[in-house]
């Protein structure tokens, strides 16, 4: 069973930036873009495991800090020509609070 867990407020995440939720099963990276869209994916690049939360965010994409793979924040999929997927997590925002389905 999964349930909604309150994580933080939108303002806690920098615009075009991210925060990390530490977790035994692998860290989760929470991103915010300039449209105030929030995304949650595994903090682990499908290429060599780089921490995606540390990358530069633009549009709906993050560039991995290790070797610049580009990951689609909405799906977790690597953009062409690369292949791979950092799993995505369900997330909702209510009254400025960010919830993750964990």
């Amino acid at each position, binding site marked *: *069973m*999964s*349930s909604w*867990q*309150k*994580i*933080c407020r939108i303002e*806690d*995440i*920098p*615009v*075009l*930036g991210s*925060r*990390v*939720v*530490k*977790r*035994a*099963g692998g*860290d989760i990276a*929470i991103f915010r*873009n*300039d*449209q105030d869209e929030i995304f949650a994916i595994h903090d682990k690049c499908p290429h*060599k*495991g*780089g*921490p995606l939360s*540390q*990358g*530069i*965010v*633009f*549009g709906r*994409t993050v*560039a991995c*800090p*290790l*070797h*610049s793979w*580009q990951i689609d924040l909405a799906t*977790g999929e690597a953009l062409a*020509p690369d292949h791979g*997927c950092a*799993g*995505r*997590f*369900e997330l909702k925002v209510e009254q400025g609070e960010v919830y*993750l*389905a*964990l």
Partner: protein
Amino acid sequence: MKKPKLVMVGNGMAGVRTLEELLKLVPDMYDITVFGAEPHPNYNRILLSPVLAGEQTVNDIILNPLSWYAEHHIRLYLNRKVVQIDRQRRVVVADDGTEAEYDRLLLATGSTPFILPVPGNQLDGVIGYRDIHDTETMIEAATRYRHAVVIGGGLLGLEAANGLKLRGMDVTVVHLSDWLLERQLDRTAGKLLQTSLEARGLKFLLPKHTAELLGGEDGRVKAVRFKDGEEIPADLVVMAAGIRPNATLAEEAGLYCNRGVVVDDTMQTYDPRIYAVGECANHRGIAYGLVAPLYEQARVVANHLAGFGIAKYQGSVTSTKLKVTGIDLFSAGEFMGGGSTEEILLSDPMGGVYKKLVIQDNKLVGACLYGDTGDGAWYFQLIREGHDIHEMRDHLMFGENHLGDAGHAGQSKAATMADDAEVCGCNGIKKGTIVKAIQEHGLTSVDDIKRCTKAASSCGSCAGLCEQILIATVGGAADLTPKTEKPICGCTDHNHASVRKAIRDAHLTSIPEVMKALEWRTPNGCATCRPALNYYLISTWPKEAKDDPQSRFINERAHANIQKDGTYSVVPQMKGGVTNAAELRRIADVADKYAIPMVKMTGGQRIDLLGVKKEDLVNVWKDLGMNSGHAYGKSIRTVKTCVGQEFCRFGTQNSTQMGIELETMLANMWSPHKVKLAVSGCPRNCAESGIKDVGIIAVDSGWELYIGGNGGIKTEVAEFFVKVSSSEEVKEYTGAFLQLYREEAFYLERTVHYLHRVGMEYIQNKVLKDPAQRLALYERLLYSLEGLPDPWAARIAGAQAHEFTPLAAPAAQAEKETV
């Protein structure tokens, strides 16, 4: 809303490339219709010669299969030749009566072979060499007939002759001029080429005027007669005596034509709704027949069709290469020389090598290479970029002898490399993989190769080698636009120079302002352009433009170096490489307290603590009680020193103190790329000043300054800049040069590359000639650095706290991922 209609006449390389560029910019803007006179989708016409030679098949050279047109909702009419443009009704009409309305019309009708106006030119077995049909005709003829005559000893003619010879025909090439390829080679190289083609069994008649083609009773050609009365047998005559822009359609529609459809710098014809691109267009009096310029034109037309309206085509310098396997020749620019030019020659006729470099006003303006063309790309780059070659004149002829120093075992000639030889040592990419990607995906630039294969995408030292492989594989189709002239990234058409200028001239002070003023195509850029813009803003408008941490690479945001496992390394500042017992004790205590897995000496005379967790960084800095060593940034790194006069028996000045003063002065300096300095106390140069961005060597009478050295990817020895007498002057001259670099270099351009781009003379003019200008530069540097806080201290005080603090973990629960 109804989309405007774009109709393209001609389905060849230039036209389809224009559509590709257009679709990249605006995928859905137009309703597109394409008319092609041939029954094939767009194919690579350049590779017809390898098809004729039996090295590739027609299927190998298709660039855009029919599915590509379908995917992009392009209406494609094959086998239909447009015969009329009705400009009043804005309709084109094809030979079968098909009509298409247009709002914008793109003419890409290419060229037609020039058929000599001699009697008999209509006989069976007399053809031009232009398309798949001609190629198939030749292949078929080779199976049934014996004698082939190729009229024209240009690129196309020789490739046709070579192919027919390989297919077993007896081939004679007839040429008007004294030597082959007279538009691409000088006489010496032309004669060398003829000798080696003769060795392959081709025959040549030159100079020779064709008078008449004689037919047999079956209506097929049987002989060629020349003006001097000589006659030779011929069952197949290939006319390769040049091409003519195919402008008939435009001319009949009343468009201004003059050896091609005349276009302006936006590739627009005299009718503003109609553009022309490729071999049919006459731009500033030239109708280009090589693919690289056509691709440049395609980008410009696409930019205008997309409504951006900022691109300009200003003509091209072209280079050529003959696609005959085993024959290497290359020429570019004004290779004939003469007039006010000088020439450097290397001639070894027995060894089959000939090289000529043509120089004018200290610049390379032309090159003609035969037998050894390995440095063709490099010369071509020097020609296009107009580099001052004065400094390297002595060894210019011997080429760029180390394309990549590391990991290539001295291998620098792409053409001779085996397919399984490693090109990219960082990513383990072999030559064969790159060649295959180039052929399969139709790659035309080093950037394409980087994207598709990852070669040259890490350290970049093999980029030169990749460029050579590209040229060796696709010849003239290679897009060799130097990086500095290319758009910064896919978000914009502006290059680094124009962005820097706009920021300065229009006083732009934030990234959104720049993106708005320069019409960025993406809402907030990408990981390539944002760091560049951020640097340009803070370096142009210090204390005014605000630094944007989200536009910095993680190392500069976290003020530590990210490692492969996501931990960080911490390098505290040790000015001039000098430390003391108290600092060493604190470092030891920190290493114990935070269980730091590795403590290592760096190459810059400091100590590196590796494997620090991000959330520990601020506390580690606090416990160290030292300043940031900036070992992570596009910034000042260290000033390496030797012990100097204080201890060393050879020392002539206090080099250690000089280094400490420089490092103090330059603390917290951001720059286009990393900046390393060294100060040596005597010419024995123990601090390795010769490979630093600014290297200083003490001599008895003062200090010598060297600039533009680099010990990294490609070792570059610093060049002598100036000699000064006091340590105050060392600071002033060093500061002024670094400020010039900070103000003018492009993002990620090291001092050596900046120096090569602008030339030593330019830098000397700016820094040495005029004391007032030098002082102004120096003062601007000090002003920029004044009051900048140490970044570690700022973060200990609470700046950017969210960067270093994870969110509180939610209670452990069963977890669900959705993929």
